[in-house]
Structure formats: C-alpha cells, structure tokens
C-alpha cells in the first residue's frame, strides 16, 4: 500500500493566513467599470451605444421639458410665453393643458361638486382591498392605509365634501386601520359589501337599491340552510332560484316602496357623465373583481373530468381568446340588443364591463389552469382521504395554492385588462387617452396639443401598471418565503 502513497507530502498549516485585499484591478469602481461597462469589445461598444442613446434622448427632449409652461389658458398663450421667455426658436411643453383640464382627464364629465364621491370611493377601495391584497404584511398595510387615509381625506376636503361624508370616510378609514391592526380578516365583510357601496357612491340614487340587492343572497342563504338538510345540490339550486326570483320580482318594487317610506338617496349621476380615469378605473376594478371568480370557475370547469363541462369551457375560452377585444366591445355596443328580449336595453358601461370581464376571465382561466396543473396529485388525494368533498377541497386546499402559484399571471392579466380599458373609446365612451383628448382638443384653445396629454395619461397608466407588477413580484417572493 505504501508505494501508492509515495508522493504524499504531509503538510500541516500552523498559522492561518489572513484574508488579503484583492489586487487593485479586482476591486472598487475600477473593477465595477471594467466588469460592468467595458468587459470585452462587444460590451464596450454597447456601453458607448447606450451613452449615445442617453445623450440623444436628453439632447432631444431636454429643452422641451425644461421650457415647459404650466400656467396658461390656451396653446397660443403657451407659445407666446415660451417665445417670450426662451427666445424665438425655443420649443417647450405646454403642461398648462393638464393644469386646466386635469379634472376632465380624471373625472370625465362627473359633476364638479361631486368629485369627492369618486375620490372617496377609490380611497375606501384600498380599505376593502386590504384583506385581499395587503394581508401579507402589517407594515405594508400600515403604509398603504396611512397614505390612503391622508390622501383621501385631504382630497375630499379640497374637493368640498360635506361634513357628514367626511365623517363617514374618517370612520371607515379608522375602522379599517383598527381592524387591520387586530385581525385583518375581520375586514372581509366590508370587502364583500364594498362593490355595492362603490356602485352606490359612484352612481348615487337610493341606498335601498344596494340594500335590496344584498337581501337577495341573504334569502338565498337562508333557503340553502333550510334545504341543505335534504341535499346539497338541491339546496344550491334553491338558493340560486330564491336569489334570482327576489331580484327579478321583488327587488325593484321594494326599492321604490322603501324609498317612499324612508328616503335614503344621494344625488344620482348618469353613466354618460363618466369619463377619463374614473371610467377606466371603474371598468378596470369591476372587471378585475368579476373576472377572477369567473376565471376560477372556467378553469375548474376546464380541469373537470366531465366531458360536457370541459368541452363547453374549452369552447368558451378558445372563442373569447380567439377574437380581439375590440370586436367584443362592438358586440356589446351593437349586437347585445339583438340577443336580449325586444325592448330591453341597459347601461353601456355595464355592457362594456361585462364584455371586458368575459374577455379577462378567459385569459384568467388559462393562467389559473396552469396553477391547478402545477399542484401535485397528492394534494387532491390527501383532501379526498380526509373526507373533504369536491367544493371544500377546491376552496380550502386547491385554490389557495393554485392562485398563489398563478399570482404573476393573474396580475399581468389585470394589467393587460386595465390597459385595454382605453379601447372603450371605439364604442363612444370617453376614455382618458383618445376620446377625452379629442374632446379637449375640440376646444379652440387646445387645438393641436398632442404630446402633453399623451405624457400625462401615459404616465398615470405607467404608474398604475408598473406599481401593480412590482407589487405582485414582491407578493410572490413574500409568499414563497413565508411557506418555506
């Protein structure tokens, strides 16, 4: 054996070497530059190209931004100011149009005296979203709610909200903050009724409407409790029937009667007054809220082993995904009346929301299907073995995990949908991008102004979409870490 070890030189280190600083070219800014900017000829060229692009962008746009005018009442006045201040050939941006018309870009034709209502609605939306979106971390919740509270209340005061409503907003915000500190899930009931509240705040009218809309499911639930002793399936059918019958037959009259007995209404605002980002957000938020459950149902149907259900869902999804959204919007605006009983006609915004929802839901279904498919079979089996029935297993075991996996996809579907709300311009609604800008430009003062509205509207879209995508990335990382 010893021959094989002939070469071994026993070696023992008695003093450990200290760690030394790297050679100069291995550290500091020099190294950073060498590695990140000038490592190799290709990268050097790219870096120079990058510098060139940056320089070009700055050179092209700097003047224009630097010479911007914020205070003028028409484009011509802007031009005069620019010429007067920076000389004859100066070019400059005229952001005065934003200053003058910001209200239209944000609120459309919503009555000025009621601007506080949409503001409050979207402020309270944050409270309603807290248990859904911000449940991951208390700090985030605190920050979001604090900012929301300050901004909302400030804006409401500035916009002249009545004291009663200010008090109401303070109450909800404070309550939200308190509950979020204690146990965020207690806010869920508020999230559940928020959609109705939101509709009421935005459109106004009688509070009895939303109340009686709520009563429907309540009665349905009672029916379910009563019948579920006999059969779950029957109970479900009964619950749905009771709800629908109540809505169709009683709700309308009841609202009128109740309103006569005790008037609980605020000034109502018609749909055609919605425009700008108010319209985009309304459609976007409603679409998001509705498309997720619909998408889940479609995804479950597509994963089902019942042939008919599966085929129906596949046909639906593939059909919706196969046609452009704009054609669906055209269906909403041109064809829906063909498909409904003669004489029915309902709000165009509602129709658009339905179409946008269906469209997003088809995409959502595919995203969620990916999440469902990624779940190991063992999870289903364990749920079965524990005696959970299909719906309980889906609700408690499968969906929470599948949705978590699909967060990035879901959020990018949301972003896509929010961006697509601009397409409503093609059915005659006043989206912030095209119709509203056209309307602004239809006035003699602002004729010919393009870039500033584009920048303003684009900037807001960017903030919202970029924010959403970053938050989803954060959420994803966070959920991953939590459960590992």
């Amino acid at each position, binding site marked *: 054996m010893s021959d094989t070890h002939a070469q071994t030189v026993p070696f023992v280190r008695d003093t450990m070497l200290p760690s030394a600083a790297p050679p100069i070219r291995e550290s500091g800014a020099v190294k950073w530059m060498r590695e990140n900017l000038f490592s190799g000829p290709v990268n050097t060229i790219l870096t120079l190209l990058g510098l060139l692009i940056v320089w070009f962008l700055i050179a092209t746009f700097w003047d224009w931004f630097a010479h911007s005018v914020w205070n003028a009442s028409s484009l011509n006045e802007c031009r005069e100011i620019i010429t007067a201040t920076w000389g004859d050939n100066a070019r400059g941006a005229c952001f005065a149009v934003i200053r003058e018309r910001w209200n239209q870009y944000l609120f*459309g034709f919503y009555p000025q005296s009621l601007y506080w209502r949409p503001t409050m609605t979207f402020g309270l939306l944050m409270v309603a979203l807290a248990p859904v979106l911000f449940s991951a971390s208390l700090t985030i919740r605190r920050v979001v709610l604090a900012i929301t509270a300050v901004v909302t209340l400030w804006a409401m005061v500035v916009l002249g909200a009545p004291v009663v409503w200010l008090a109401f907003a303070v109450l909800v915000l404070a309550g939200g903050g308190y509950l979020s500190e204690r146990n965020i899930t207690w806010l869920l009931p508020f999230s559940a009724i928020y959609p109705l509240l939101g509709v009421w705040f935005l459109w106004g009218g009688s509070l009895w409407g939303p109340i009686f809309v709520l009563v429907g499911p309540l009665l349905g639930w009672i029916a379910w409790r009563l019948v579920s002793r006999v059969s779950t399936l029957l109970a479900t059918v009964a619950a749905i029937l009771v709800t629908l019958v109540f809505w169709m037959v009683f709700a309308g009259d009841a609202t009128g009667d109740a309103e006569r007995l005790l008037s609980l209404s605020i000034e109502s605002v018609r749909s055609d007054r919605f425009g700008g980002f108010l319209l985009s957000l309304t459609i976007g938020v409603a679409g998001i809220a509705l498309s997720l459950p619909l998408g889940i149902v479609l995804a479950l149907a597509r994963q089902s082993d019942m042939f008919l259900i599966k085929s129906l869902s596949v046909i639906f999804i593939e059909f919706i995904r196969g046609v452009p959204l704009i054609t669906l919007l055209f269906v909403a605006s*041109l064809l829906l009346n063909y498909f409904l009983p003669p004489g029915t006609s309902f709000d165009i915004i509602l129709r658009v929301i339905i179409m946008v929802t269906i469209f997003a839901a088809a995409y959502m279904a595919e995203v969620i299907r990916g999440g469902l498919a990624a779940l190991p079979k063992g999870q289903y089996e364990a749920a079965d073995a524990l005696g959970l029935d299909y719906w309980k297993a889906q609700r408690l075991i499968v969906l929470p995990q599948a949705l978590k996996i699909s967060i990035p996809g879901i959020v990018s579907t949301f972003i896509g949908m929010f961006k697509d709300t601009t397409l409503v311009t093609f059915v005659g609604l006043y989206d912030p991008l095209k119709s509203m800008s056209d309307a602004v430009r239809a006035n003699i003062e602002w004729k010919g102004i393009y870039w500033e509205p584009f920048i303003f509207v684009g900037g807001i879209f960017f903030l919202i979409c970029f924010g959403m995508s970053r938050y989803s990335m954060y959420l994803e990382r966070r959920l991953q870490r939590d459960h590992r």
Partner: protein
Amino acid sequence: QEGATLAQVMERDELNCGVNTGLVGFAAPDANGNWTGFDVAYCRALAAAVLGDPEKVSFVPTTGQTRFTALSSGEVDVLARNSTWTYSRDTDLALDFVGVNYYDGQGFMVNRELGVTSAKELDGATICIQTGTTTELNLADYFRANQMDYTPVNIDSNAEGEQQYMAGACDAYTTDASGLAATRAAFADPESHIILPEIISKEPLGPAVRHGDNNWGDIARWTLNALIAAEEYGVTSRNIEELVRSSTNPEVQRLLGTTDELGAMMGLDAEWARRAILANGNYGEIFAANIGEQTPIGLARGLNAQWTQGGLLYAQPFR
C-alpha cells in the same frame, strides 16, 4: 310597436338622443359635459315637447359607424346626428327620416397655399375622409365621374380628420360643407384655408327614427315642423307667451295649442309645441345661436332659409 316608443320614453322620463361624438356647432360636450349645438337643440325641443323638460335628454354620442345600429337596436329613440337622408337608408336600413333640418352638400377644404381653386384640380390628391359616411361613396363617385385619381386617408372621427388635415397628412379634407365650415372656423388661422366652390352632392340632413312606430315618427316630424313653422310665423321664444295670449292667426293658435287639440292626435298634450319652441327658440333662433353668422362657425342661411326667403325650408301646414 306602434306607440311603444312614446310609452317607453314617458316611462323612462328621459329621451335618448343619438348625437355626434363631437362636431362643434352641431353637437359637442363642453368642459362640464353639457351638450350644445344645432342637433342638440332639436333633441331638447323634442324632449320638451314629449316630457315637458328640455333637460330630460340623455345624449348618446355615436360614431359614424355605430349611429344607425344604435337607433335600430333601440339604444336611442331618435338620431339627430347630421345624417344624410338617402334612399337605401330609408328603405334598406329601415330608418324613417322625419324631415330635413339642414340642407347640406359635400365640399372640399384645402390649404390656401396649395393654390387649388377647384375640386377638378384635385387629381392625384390625398383626401381625408370619415369612414362609414355617405361622403365616402360620393367621393368615389365624383372622382370616377371626372376620371381623376385620389388616395383616401380613412379617419374615424372629425377630430382626427382635423388633426390629419392640419398636419398636412392630406391635401384636402372632405365632408359636408357645414362640417367644413365648422371645422375651419375652429382653426387658429381660418383665413389660410379655403372651401372649394364645388358641392359634389346633395346632403339633406335630418333626424331619423326607427321604422315601425309611426306615432313616434309623427312626434319627431312635427316637432321639427313646429320649430320651422314658428320661424315662419314669427313665433320666437321671447314673444311666445304674449302670442299665446294675443295671437289671432289661427295657424299660430293651432300651433301653440290655444285652439284645437292638435297634440292629442299624437298622444301629447296641447302645449307640446309651445314647450318645444320655448326650449331653444324657433328654427331661426337655433340656427343663429349655434351655427349662424354671428357664431365662429358663421354659416349663412342659404338653402336653409324659409321658403318665403328663397330657401328650401317649408313646414307642412298645422291643420
């Protein structure tokens, strides 16, 4: 169906009126979303006649493409969106034009610098044109008839047409002469644009309703007639109260409902025409307030003068 529209409107307590998405002078929302314009005034008059309140109108902005569908699908009760009365629209599209509120014709606007003085010189030009309008068809016909070539630049809305034209993306902009005038009026330098003398088509513009509900058609028609007749008889929004009391002209009396219950024949009350006129004044007042020579749009009455003034406006007798 017969009478259904009136019942619906009454029940809704609001008139749905299809208008242009934005054509200065004819229909455009201002910064607060209040609609004004020549077509808008008709809608208000109709609402006043039917519902007693000129404010009870919901204006549905329609594009060139969606307007007729909006009407035939019942989304709007009446369409007052400078639409041309043509044979195929009246028959095939199943619309009923209730009259003409503006006699128009298609023209061209070009930049003065171009040095063009006649449409005949437009051979090879690029022409901006709204899609889905009769102008698109007229243009094709005109250039073929004169054996000229052109490149159409299809646009979606008047605002966009202006933008394209202003930027020089087309040599000429074609649409109804009234629209051209309105557009030109809104330019910063109207002087540097000229409207060519050729009018290449007849464009009788008027409100339209659906086929099938003649009663509603009557109401729409006679509201328009009431406005026109009022001008003919000198009934204005200012003197109307006085005339109600004092007018001895039987036709005026019938119009204003002081004698004969004409309104009842259509299912309205006696004072319907009075309210219609009070809403924005008679035809002449509406014209003057929205598109007349005192306005930036500055249209002359021309063909749209009363027949008594050498124009084509001729209200059927109220009898």
